[in-house]
């Protein structure tokens, strides 16, 4: 793997870690949601630092080119991330619906008492 490509990967991984930390510091996501991003950054960093090791793994797993394995892993991860986001959003929709209904009913009750 050419050295400049490795440098790009390392820089990107570090950038991802910094980005996640800054989001965490501002309290915009709970810690548990940041784990996945640290994990992804770690994989990218690993590829940048020890490409030979990753090459070995991809060969063992039957990938012809290491890049294919990386793409496959990221794609798989993203699928699960999106799915869990769908679950989170749906749960939230349910809760918001409940809130709107109960608040509206309460307002009606208040009006009646006036």
């Amino acid at each position, binding site marked *: 793997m050419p050295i400049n490509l490795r440098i790009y990967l390392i820089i990107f991984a570090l950038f991802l870690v910094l980005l996640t930390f800054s989001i965490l510091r501002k309290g915009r996501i709970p810690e548990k949601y940041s784990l996945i991003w640290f994990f992804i950054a770690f994989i990218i960093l690993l590829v940048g630092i020890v490409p030979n090791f990753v090459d070995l793994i991809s060969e063992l797993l039957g990938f012809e080119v290491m890049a294919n394995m990386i793409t496959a892993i990221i794609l798989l991860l993203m699928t699960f991330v999106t799915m869990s986001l769908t679950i989170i959003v749906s749960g939230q*929709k349910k809760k918001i*619906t409940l809130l*709107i*209904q*109960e*608040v*509206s*009913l309460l*307002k*009606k009750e208040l009006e009646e008492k006036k």
Partner: protein
Amino acid sequence: MNNSKILIIIPAYNEQDNILNTCNTIIKYNKKNKTNYDFIVINDGSSDNTGKICHENNIPVVDLIHNLGIGGAVQTGYKYAYYNNYDIAVQFDGDGQHDVNCIKNIIEPIIKGQADMVIGSRFISNNNTFKSTFARRIGIRIISKIMKLITNRKIYDTTSGFRAINSLIIKDFAMSYPLEYPEPITTSELLRKNYIVKEVPVEMNERKAGVSSIKTWKNVYYMLNVILSLIVVRIRRYKRCQ
């Protein structure tokens, strides 16, 4: 059970041209027939004057603080019925499609204890005058066929929004109600839970004003979603009543 507390739930989204008329027909009906139907309008975050008209005319209304869609609006009505201990809740469209004179027919089997839910059906009367688009009739028939496969019961008017339920189901609906495509889904769910569902013939009018919420180009998407939801009803586990 002759003095059952009966609530008519009228979901309304941008129905300023129809809502007053609909409510007045119920008030007139109550006076004429000495019935005691309570009713409540669920104003689903309308952007027009639906809410204002209700308040000015002293029509009981719950103003949803944000638009929820038909499922969420109707469920608010069922919650209101549950919190206020109603025995029977009737779902009734705010656009003048449903006939107030048919309410007694759909609540009768419930009062007599012959059914838990009664669906007002356009397709089982002999003098069927309801005109609907060809695509829509085909859609309703397909849903009906799939529901037969899933629940082993033939329901003819699967998408009818003119229904009455008893207090058992009021509680059930107050707890959980699908946000989208509620009619075919809840009917199948109730059948799977072994509730008794009946269909009685009703007359329905053409819409008096406004536009129906189901648009033609959405039909295919609607069908796919309903079919998928019904399959999910089949594979889910339910606590059976009785």
